[in-house]
């Protein structure tokens, strides 16, 4: 700006051609020296060959029928089998759960008025509804199932309208609704002898992606506050509190999750009264949550340690008591600075939910493995099946990191 005002001096010139546009970029990044040029050429050859080979295999050689055969089992495992729900169709219960989730996404969109929640909500609702069009026979995939899938688009709209036109549309109420929905989903999927129309379905029959998602969402939701509490405890000036937190964190970080899961079936019952209702899923969820909390605690502690001491000092000098200083000044900045680490932790947690196979639960990976084992005629399709599973996990984890990057941008992490 200042340069335009100045009447004297040389006028600005455009940069030399080698530093501009596509050619400049390629010159700077790909062919700046003969070595990097050679590297670029070799890399292109390798990538090209891999792409040709990969696409050829995916389109012409691979046999994807195994995925169609497994179908809904990938999503809910053995949930809708005769063993799990004798004499009735239970498929609607997970489906209504999904509708509730879409409803919440719609509410988030209505609350935010656009942006990321809008794009996310629309993407999820459209993808889910698209499953209604799968070319299965109507015996295999009934009209009811298709309608419930298609209902995701109206559910999104209803959620949006609720947030827009009712008092539920505040951030606090949307957050509360999300908690209510999470509990409602657990009740809906579990059922209970006292609830008419909802025959209990033992958690032993919960499975597929549904199981991974329930464990991951529960683990994330609980490990975040527990992790914060542990991080604060570890910084506490009370020696007993500090010691307890250090021991907890180091124990849970020091033992492999698979070992913890195995032990959970023996150890968790000891921590609860004898007649406390519990089951293998509950125990696994507790162990996964605590395991993740320990890592979360260290992430948050790192964030707190990186803060300039002047921040807390300024707050204390204003007369804020130490807990308010923590709540309003230190924690928000600390968490904001470690969002990438926290999301990394959540992604790890999501992938780790597959380990529940060790206690006999049929998550999406285990059910696939068990299917191949039980149906040797599909043995040749193992690669297709597991490639597909990899893709499924990738879609979820990539969405998580995409959302986190957008959140980071909105919070202006770089702006310090």
């Amino acid at each position, binding site marked *: 700006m200042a340069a335009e005002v100045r009447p004297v001096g040389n006028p600005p010139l455009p940069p030399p051609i080698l530093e501009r546009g596509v050619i400049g970029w390629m010159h700077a990044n790909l062919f700046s020296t003969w070595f990097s040029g050679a590297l670029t050429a070799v890399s292109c050859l390798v990538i090209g060959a891999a792409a040709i080979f990969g696409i050829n295999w995916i389109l012409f050689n691979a046999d994807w029928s195994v995925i169609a055969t497994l179908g809904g089992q990938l999503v809910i495992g053995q949930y809708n089998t005769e063993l799990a729900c004798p004499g009735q169709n239970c498929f609607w219960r997970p489906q209504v759960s999904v509708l509730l989730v879409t409803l919440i996404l719609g509410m988030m969109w209505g609350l935010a008025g656009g942006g990321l929640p809008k794009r996310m909500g629309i993407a999820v609702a459209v993808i889910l509804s698209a499953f209604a069009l799968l070319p299965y026979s109507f015996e295999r995939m009934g009209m009811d199932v298709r309608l419930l899938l298609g209902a995701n688009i109206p559910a999104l709209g209803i959620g949006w309208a609720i947030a827009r036109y009712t008092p539920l549309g505040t951030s606090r109420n949307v957050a509360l609704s999300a908690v209510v929905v999470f509990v409602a989903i657990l009740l809906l999927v579990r059922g209970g002898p006292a609830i008419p129309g909802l025959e209990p379905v033992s958690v032993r029959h919960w499975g597929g992606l549904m199981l991974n998602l329930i464990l991951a969402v529960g683990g994330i939701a609980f490990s975040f506050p527990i992790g914060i509490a542990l991080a604060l405890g570890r910084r506490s000036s009370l020696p007993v509190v500090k010691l307890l937190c250090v021991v907890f964190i180091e124990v849970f970080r020091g033992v492999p999750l698979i070992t913890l899961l195995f032990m959970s079936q023996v150890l968790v019952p000891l921590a609860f009264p004898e007649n406390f209702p519990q089951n293998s899923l509950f125990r696994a969820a507790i162990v996964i949550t605590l395991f993740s909390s320990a890592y979360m605690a260290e992430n948050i502690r790192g964030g707190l340690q990186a803060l300039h001491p002047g*921040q807390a000092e300024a707050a204390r000098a*204003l*007369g804020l008591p130490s807990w*308010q200083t923590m709540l309003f000044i230190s924690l928000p900045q600390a968490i904001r600075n470690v969002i990438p680490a926290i999301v990394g932790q959540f992604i790890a947690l999501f992938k780790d939910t597959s380990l529940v196979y060790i206690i006999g639960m049929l998550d999406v990976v285990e059910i696939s493995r068990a299917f191949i084992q039980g149906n040797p005629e599909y043995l040749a399709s193992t690669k297709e099946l597991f490639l597909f599973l990899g893709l499924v996990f990738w879609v979820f984890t990539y969405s998580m990191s995409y959302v986190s990057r957008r959140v980071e941008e909105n919070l202006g992490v770089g702006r310090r």
Partner: protein
Amino acid sequence: MEAQETNNGSEDIIICRDVHKWYGSFHALRGITTSIGKAQVVVVFGPSGSGKSTFIRTINRLEEHQRGQIIVDGIELTNDVRNIDAIRRDVGMVFQSFNLFPHLTVMDNIILAPMKVRKMPRDEARQVALDLLDRVGITEQSEKYPTQLSGGQQQRVAIARALAMQPNIMLFDEPTSALDPEMIKEVLEVMKELASSGMTMVVVSHEMGFAREVADRMMMFDQGSIVEDGSPEQIFENPQSDRTKLFLSQIL
């Protein structure tokens, strides 16, 4: 807030008696005895490491003293948390590095403490904040984030933030040392205005022009002690201690 009226009729708002402070085995404050009257403006100066920051930070107990007595606004600083919080509410502090909260807007920086500590309703706190921003010469920046402001603007916001708690005493620890020359002036202007409004101020600073013009009193610190204490005229025209003479000859 009306505490000073019942202060036994004494006009001294800060009283220090033989205050000692150690960092580990390092003796940082070595018996500070002084009292500062209401509405006095005291400029504290002295060589680096002489304990100036430590001294003013003991006044609102950002640092704890280990021996002696400090009475601020009629309340003695002890380990009693209620006393400490009460004093911090009435003593504002401005730091060399501003220490604004980067995750909050200028407005939220200012209204946070009045709302949380003084339980002031948001609308009232906002009004107070707007008046203060006007007073320190920053208008229409209230929804910006601190890093979007210049250093001088940030420091003036920090002053407004401290004033929003309606303190009786303001402490300044080298408020202009991190600023470019043209910004120093705008901050000093605000401080002059504050001094003329009758605020009790303790200012660590080497801005001798400011001291000469505004200070009622100057204190020279060296090695954890007050080596000279007097009016600006006396300090500049007729310093008693050789240390003061030497130090002033170096910086003037």
